[in-house]
């Protein structure tokens, strides 16, 4: 069953065309990774899906709803802030630089969305948040501020914050790139266990081995387009595209 369907997505920043017509389908329960060189449009694609960026053409359909824009009498208009906020809550996003709320504890970070967006009662939100913190192995750090946590711990709190909102789709944007090498493992293990439980994920990553081992399917982006895609095992073993071959050789997988 198709959960996310992107059709002909285009996006430009001034004169630079960053996305040149991206088509992508993601099924429910599928883990798809996106690889490619810097500037190939991977992160922009994720940010469009989470409506953090507007886009110029094409459409993004999430769970049968075209998101971000309404079409009326042939003109296309960006939705209002309230509606955008509601649609954003359908996807969860984890960022490269964690982006935890610095003034809130780990628990407070996970609870904020539950209280204000999902309008849960405080006790209920706290139970659910503690539940998620323990799933990422951080129940003993619940009352710590982000500044008192290691990078790996912060990123796991960010994962708990995103997942606690019960999103239909989770977007991960180079979530290990800002981590010390010895902390990468704990974060990737968390993602692996989520993948096993059937969480639908779209993962932008520079960790080629991770993409190969965890993602059902891998997308290679080049110059704002999907240059090649296929089952991860096959794509890494037997790349067809010349640029992909070059990219994988340099990534030294």
């Amino acid at each position, binding site marked *: 069953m198709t959960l996310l369907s992107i059709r002909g997505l285009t996006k430009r920043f001034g004169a630079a065309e960053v996305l040149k017509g991206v088509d992508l389908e993601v099924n429910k329960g599928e883990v798809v990774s996106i690889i490619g060189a810097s500037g190939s449009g991977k992160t922009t694609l994720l940010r469009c899906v989470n*409506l*953090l960026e507007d886009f110029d053409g094409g459409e993004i359909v999430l769970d049968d709803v075209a998101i971000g824009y309404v079409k009326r009498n042939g003109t296309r208009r960006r939705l209002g802030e309230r509606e955008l906020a509601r649609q954003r809550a359908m996807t969860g996003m984890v*960022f490269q630089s964690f*982006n935890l709320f610095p003034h809130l504890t780990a628990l407070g970070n996970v609870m904020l969305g539950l209280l*204000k967006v999902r309008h849960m009662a405080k006790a209920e939100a706290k139970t659910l948040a503690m539940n998620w913190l323990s799933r990422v192995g951080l129940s003993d750090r619940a009352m710590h501020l982000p500044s008192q946590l290691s990078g790996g711990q912060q990123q796991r709190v960010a994962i708990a914050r*995103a997942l606690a909102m019960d999103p239909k789709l989770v977007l991960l944007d180079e979530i290990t790139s800002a981590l010390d090498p010895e902390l990468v493992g704990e974060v990737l293990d968390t993602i692996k266990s989520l993948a096993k439980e059937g969480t639908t994920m779209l993962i932008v990553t520079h960790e080629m081995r991770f993409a190969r081992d965890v993602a059902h399917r891998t997308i290679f982006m080049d110059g704002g387009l999907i240059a090649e895609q296929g089952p991860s095992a096959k794509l890494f073993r037997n790349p067809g595209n010349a640029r992909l071959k070059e990219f994988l050789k340099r990534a030294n997988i």
Partner: protein
Amino acid sequence: MAYSFRFGVIEANLDNFLQGLLLGLALAFAAILIGTLIGLLCAFATTAKSRAPSRLVGIYVSAIRNTPLLVIVLFVYFALPQLGIRLGKLESFIFSLAIYSGAYLTEVFRAGLAGVPKGVVDAGRAIGLNGLQRALYVIMPIMWRNCLPALGTTFISLFKDTSLAAVIAVPELTYQARKLNTETFRVAEAWATASLLYLSTCLLIAAGLRQLERRFPKF
């Protein structure tokens, strides 16, 4: 030095001094309250996508910051009635200090907002917080902490600025000192007392603000 201090006169008038001090604090409090609202509104307005609010705020801030407060106070009290806007002494001074502090606080809050990481605001967006919720639960708490030190300095200097209310005969501390000066000619005692009261009050406020900074450590 032929001057001999006689502080008995101060003792007899201590009530007036203290009442003057309290009035000054009250004026500062009211003006800062309004000024904070103006400052928040203006600072957030400059973050809007459209450029017009930013321009208007820029004009307001530079107009006010490049006019002496004394002139603003005199203008509001003496000139506005000619233009049909008549305010009482207290209201007039509070209004003057409010628009004055609003301009300075706009700049303080703007600096505080600039220090809110964009990624953190994106994270608020990503979990589905709407604009108002992001401002209340994400941006403002971080902004407050960012501008706490600058805010303290501004508050103290605004409190000291209440001494200008003396020129329109608002009976605050400076007015009381001048009154005692002219009535008793105990010049040194009057101004020494006023100075000491200003100094100790400002030191107290500063100590309180330092406590606040310690209570809310930097993230």
